[in-house]
Structure formats: C-alpha cells, structure tokens
C-alpha cells in the first residue's frame, strides 16, 4: 500500500517535490541487534503469540542456565555415589539431603537432572551446528549447479528419509562409538548420529530456496555482470537462502532432544559414569514404577518434556510471526461509525 511514488502534483518539474522516502528517514534504521532473528520477532509480537514466545524463551533460558552453571547448582556430581557421611541410600525418598530422592543405583536425582541439562544442550548444539553446515553447503551446491551431482545428493537424502530416524541413529552411534563411551566421545557420537538424521532436512530446504533464487532477476543480474559462481553463491544466494533456517533449527532441536533421550533410553547413549543423561535415567526408572517409587521417573521425564516444550513454543511462535498472514497485530481504535449507522436508516 505504501509504495511511495513520484506522483506529487507538480506540473513544472516531474521530479517529486518532497522526497518520497522521507518517512523512511524518520524511522532510522534500527541497530543490528534488534534485527536479529528471535529479537526481531519478539519485538513485533502481541497477545497470545507473544505469550507463547516468551514462555518458550524463558523455559529455554532456564535449561541453558542450568547447563552452564551445573557445577554450581548441583549439590553432588552426576556419578557420585557417596560423600563424607558414607554411601547414598538406594531409592531414597525425597528429603532435605536429597531433594528429589535417589535412584536405584544410588545417584542423587536432582544432580542427575541438572547435569543432564548440560549433556542435552551440548549434544543439541553440536548436532544442529554440524547439520547446518553440512546441509547448507550441500544444499547450495546441489541446488545451484544442478545436474548429476544434484540428482545423486537428492537420492541419498531421500534414502536417508526412508529409514526410521531412531534406527538410523542407533546404527550410526554403534559405528562411531561401538555402543557406549565416555563424556566427549559419547556426546559426539550422539550428536553425529542426530546430524545424519537431520542433514537431509536442511539440505532440502536450502536446496529448494537455492533453486528458486537461481532464477531470481538479481541472481541473473549477477550472472550478466560476469560474477563467478563462488561469488554469486556467497554474496547473493547464501544469505537469501537461509531466511527460514531459524525456524527449522528450533523445530529440529526439540526433535534432537527426543532422539538423544531415545538413544539413552535404549542403552545406546552415554555411559552413566561419564555423563548424566535423562533417557538413561528414565530407562533405569522403569522397574521403580511398579514399586510406587515415582521420583526417579517423574523428574528426568519432566525435564525432557519442559525443554522440548520450550523449544517447540519458540519454534511455533517464530513460524507464526514470520508469516504476515498468521501474525497478530494490534487493532487500531475503531473509527466512529456514526455516518454508517445514519446511512443505514436512510437506505
């Protein structure tokens, strides 16, 4: 609607009298940090969408803080079975000493949940980073160059899609770590197996965007100017192709947590003496359920649910906010309808 046009009613000079973009000048370009993905959307949101986004961000921030400050928050180590006063009780009920009780192996549940946040956040971060770089790189090249390379890559991506993702993750983790392993190698194995599952998604999105951008006039204009392929890809295609990525990242991150928990639950995760892992704890808690011991299962389970919920809330509200048709806006004060009602009587 607000396309400024040169149409100021000036007869003598065709050039507009007033600068048509004068209003843009007043609205000075915003500082860079305000235009970053999540912040941009947060500033534009209203009502329920704002509530969802803030709730999601708070949940995520909580878990990230928990992960960063785990050594300060957790009263005990993740593999600690005893302290100066002797061995920890097994399956001990929540008490002043053990806030959320202890597990069948004698670990403190609260400490395990806090340390588990560290494992989860680190794994998801690694997995998402690795899949982004692989996915974007392959997607750009495949989409822009096309031809036989494109066909092969698309076929491989389709083949990966055809596998159940958890099965694939199990196979990869066995290949990488031989089943169980220590802290870093375990996290790396889990992260890489998640990467393999998610690369095709990033690849597809970036490839589709690249194919679309390839025929956009501004890319053709760069070709007409004689720009080299690497220059076109890096300067004109890449930044325009990655616009929808923040959304996929958030949605994938929640899936990555579920995959990690699934691996741990099935026993293909990280050794309990090397790091705390919610999925593993849940697995150990199965037998407790029959005995009425609720605390070993509820707390790690709630942690998984809350973190996944937080990330999904962020992702979903980003999705709604980035689509102008779904984005809610503040309604203006309604214009007076006096004339309208008067007219109705007349008609």
């Amino acid at each position: 609607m607000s396309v400024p046009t040169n149409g100021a009613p000036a007869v003598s000079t065709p050039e507009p009298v007033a600068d048509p973009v004068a209003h843009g000048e007043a609205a000075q370009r915003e500082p860079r940090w305000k235009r970053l993905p999540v912040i941009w959307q947060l500033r534009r949101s209203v009502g329920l969408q704002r509530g969802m986004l803030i709730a999601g961000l708070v949940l995520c921030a909580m878990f990230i803080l928990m992960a960063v400050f785990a050594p300060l928050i957790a009263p005990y180590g993740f593999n600690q079975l005893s302290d100066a006063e002797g061995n920890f009780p097994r399956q001990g009920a929540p008490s002043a000493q053990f806030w959320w009780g202890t597990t069948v192996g004698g670990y403190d549940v609260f400490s395990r949940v806090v340390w588990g946040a560290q494992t989860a956040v680190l794994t998801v971060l690694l997995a998402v980073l690795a899949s982004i770089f692989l996915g974007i790189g392959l997607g750009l090249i495949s989409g822009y160059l096309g031809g036989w390379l494109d066909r092969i890559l698309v076929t491989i991506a389709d083949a990966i899609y055809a596998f159940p993702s958890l099965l694939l993750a199990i196979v990869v983790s066995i290949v990488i770590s031989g089943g169980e392993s220590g802290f870093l190698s375990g996290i790396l194995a889990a992260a890489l197996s998640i990467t393999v599952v998610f690369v095709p998604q990033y690849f597809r999105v970036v490839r589709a965007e690249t194919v679309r951008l390839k025929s956009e006039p501004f890319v053709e204009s760069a070709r007409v100017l004689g720009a080299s392929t690497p220059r076109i890809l890096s300067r004109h295609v890449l930044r325009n192709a990655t616009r929808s990525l923040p959304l996929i990242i958030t949605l994938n991150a929640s899936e990555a947590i579920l995959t990690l928990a699934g691996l741990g639950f099935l026993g293909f995760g990280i050794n309990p003496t090397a790091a705390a892992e919610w999925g593993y704890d849940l697995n150990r808690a199965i037998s407790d359920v029959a005995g009425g011991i609720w605390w070993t299962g509820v707390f790690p389970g709630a942690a998984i649910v809350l973190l996944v919920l937080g990330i999904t809330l962020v992702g979903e509200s980003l999705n709604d906010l980035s689509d102008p048709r779904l984005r809610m806006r503040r309604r203006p004060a309604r214009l007076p309808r006096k004339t309208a009602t008067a007219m109705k009587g007349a008609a």
Partner: protein
Amino acid sequence: MTVVQNHTQPDAAVQPAVEIRDLRISFTTDAEPVRAVEGVNLHVQPGEVLAIVGESGSGKTVTAKSILGLLPDNATVSGAVVLAGHDVVQLSAAELRQVRGRDVAMVFQEPSTALNPVFTVGWQIAEGLRAHGEYSRKKARARAIEILGTVGIPDPQSRVNQYPHQFSGGQKQRIVIAMALALGSKVIVADEPTTALDVTVQAEILDLLRRVRDDFGCAIVLITHNMGVVADLADRVAVMYRGEVVEEADARELFADPQHEYTQHLLGAVPRLGALTSYRKPGARSTRTTAEELSAGAAGAPSEAPAAAVVQARDLQIVYPGRLGRPGFHAVKNVNFTIAPGEVLGLVGESGSGKTTIGRAIVGLTRATGGSLSVLGHEMVGFKERAFRPLRSRVGFVFQDPATSFNPLLTVGEAIAEPLLIHDQAQDAAGAKAKVQALLDAVHLPTHYGQRYPHELSGGQRQRASLARALALDPELLVADEPTSALDVSVQARVLEVFSELQERLGFATLFISHDLAVVGMLADHIGVLYRGELVEHGTGEQVLTDPQHPYTQRLLASVPVPDPVEQKQRREALAAHRAAEDGQPQPV
C-alpha cells in the same frame, strides 16, 4: 438478457446503481495503521462506466473492492456503500454472499487465476447460477451456453464442456465477464481487466465491456492505470491520489481540460503514439543512421552491416528443448537484425512473441540454438561462459521488475559497486565509492541513496538505480527488457527521460524490448515487430509507426488506445473497419 431488463425499474435511472459516501478504509500493519482511502464520495448510474484511475497505492482497488465487501481481515471500514438499497459495509457475511453475484460481480486482472482449473467453464457458470436460485442442471447448462454465446465464445455448445486451460487469455476474460452476466448483476467491478492481455486482445475485451453496458444496462466500475483504456471506455472518470478523489469529471471534459494539477501531470506523462520526437532530437537520429542501413532494414532482409556492428543476428533460431519425446518449442525463427554502435533498436511484440528470449540470448542467459548471433564479435550460438565472461563488462542489462532485480540484503550502493568489484575496477567498496556516487548522480538520484536498501526506494528510483548498475562499466551495449512496464505512467516518463538523456550523452547501443508501441516510438531509431517468433517488420521508427506494411503491425497499431476520447472513437471505428476487411483475408503469418 430479457430477465435483466425486466429488473430495471423505470425510476432506476435516477437512482444510482452504487453510491459511495464518505468511505474511509484503514489497514492494520506492523507499524502505523495505513489509511488507504480517506473520505471518498462516488456514484455510478446504471448503464454508465465510471473509471477510477490513479497510480499504485492510490486506493483505487481498495475502493472498488469495498463495493463487494471483499476487504481483508485487517481492514477497518467506515462510511457507506449503498448498493441496491443495502449498505454493504453493514451487511453480515451471509447477506454479503447474497449480494455478491446477484447485485454486483467482479472481473479480475488475471483471468487465468479467477477460474478454477479443475472444473469445466460450464460447471463454473452453473455453480454461480445455482448459488442464487433454483436452476435445474439442464436449465443451468442451457443458460451457460446462451451466455457464452453472448460474450462471443465461438461454438458455445461444445466449448461449454472445456476446461479453462483450453481457452486463450482473452477468451478466459470473456468467460469471467459471462459469469458476471449470467447472474444478471447490475454492477460489474472490473479491476484492471485488460492489463494482463495483449493490445489486440485488449481492444476486443473493451468492445465486449462496451456492449455489456449498452445491451444489458450494467453499471461498470473500471479500475485502470491505462489512460488509453479510460479514453476508450469510460463515461465518467474519477482520479484518485493518496486515498482521495482529487478530480471527477465527464471523460471528454477531463481529457480536454483537466482541472487538478495531479490530473494534468498524469495526462502529461502518458506516452503518446506518434509523439516521436518528444525525447529524441531528429538531428541526432539522422547522424547515426545511414541511408544504407535504412534501406537494408526496411527490406527486412539480412543486411550487409558494417563489421563494427554491436549485435548481428542472422537466421537466428532459439528452440527451448521439449520434454522427452516431444519436439522443442520454437521461440525465435529466422530473425535477422543488426544493431550499429550507438543505435537504439526497439523490439515490439505480444507476450510469447520471443522478444524477451532474444534479449536474454544476447547476454547469454538463454542459449541461441541455430543461425548466428554475434555480440561484440563473439558468437553466442554454442558459447562457453568462460570465454564470454571478459566481454560481459561491455554489455549491460536492465530487468523488467526493479523490485526483484536487486539483492534485498545489499544496499543500493553495494549493488552498483558489484560490477566494478567483479571486473577488478575497484579493490573494495571504499574504492568504488566515487564512481558509485557519480553513477547515482548521472541517473539523478541523491548520492546518499547509496546507503539505502532497495525496498526503501520507490519503483521508479529503483529502476534508475538499476540503470546506473547496468552502466557502471561504460558498456557498449545495453539490453533493456521491458524496463518500464512495472511502473506507473508518471514514473515511467521520468525513467525514460533519464534513459534517453544518458543514451544521448554516452552513446551506447541499445536493444529496447517493450510491448508498448508508444514507449518504443519515443526512444528507438529502428523498430522491429515480432510476431510468433518471426520478425514481421523492421524499419525506422517513423516508418513503422506511420506507414506499417505488414497486416499484423497495422492491427497492432490500430489496437493501441490513445488517451483522447474523441480521437479514440475514430480509431475504434477504423479498427472495426480494418477487422471487417481482414476477415475476408487469411490471418497474418
């Protein structure tokens, strides 16, 4: 037909078909609410065509859509739109549905998207009929056939069972009009009904709309930015500017004696056929074009052009490969032309005539497949990108849509500096700055616009920046593909002025591609007319525009509506006579 006339009561002549009183519409956006329409008062009598003109963003479409209550959710409306005794603004959704189709119908800009591709046209017309009354299947079909015949679809008996894709663009628009007529709507809102159509088809659709007004007594609200169309069809004209009606007058009166200065400015900016020398001085033209070239060009034969020709096409063929087992599509057939240094060649033709394909082949975006196309001495048939790349600095290209031809993430200054950086004429952005500022200055943009992003510029400004980018390397050849067709007329005039000024000063050769004969006539030394991939006429600007030889060119010229109701009436009659005469003869080409 008779049904409709029975509806028209004797006293309806005094009662306006639509009356808009103090209409105000605003839209909620992320920023401030946008007030699109501010206090518009309009009325349309039955059997009258009211044209609403104005540039994009003036609120003309929103005003017209409010007659059907077709506004999006984020719109806030006040005022009254009285249609057949109801105030549309106050109606509920169910009541609105009754009004639409029965009392008012809409004809959209793009007929191919207004029809559902998976149903036959007969079904779609019957669907509308049955939504508003009890029609048996048989009766609805009979009515659909009758109405298709009325709007001039040949052989309606069998074509009623065809799908939209089996009709041409003009026929589709006829069907959309037929759907409006089938329900006996007394008001038809036509939103740019001919913008997506070729000139020759446009003339036919305008004829049909005129017939709808005369035979059916419909009131038509015509929204358009084309002053020629207004002069051809409208009885009364309302000029809108920034949400307000600045002038409303009888069509003849408005064109003869515009009162408001915006109207005067708008009419002054319309390119006119035959206004050949408005920008180009005849002296400049004659120095460039030798008599030898003239005769060669006029004959349309492969000319013995001087060796220095910037572009030389001989028997040029461009075939788009077809699907497996199918023959390819022959977009360009046996085209011959040359562009001498400093010459402006205008290529005119309808959509699908191959004019854009030729332009793209010259810069290597589309592959020429046969014959010979030599650009700056380099053969483009079977060219290798690596070998052609050094020559790219000598060719500039201006795209049709300025909104998409700039990378949205680079500032205008960075975009103009791109060619300089690519061809190592500057080390970095800072080194290119002086040149970028000089270029912005040359296209009459303030130099600080270099720091803005493309979306912060208006369409006309962006197209001037696009020209600056194309000229950054001082090319010997510029290919301009419909550079002004996405722009409003007043803006178009400015862009063309800048273009011809720079062309005079820098003396680059130009291939100017356009569907608008008037625009090409203003700029080009030579004009080539393309029809279905063949160059049917080629000659100097004056010769093609004043004394066309090929029947297609004659029809094309006769179909262009001129912005003058009196003259347009004569032209219309001349075109009708021309068509009648042509009916006896075989179709051109």
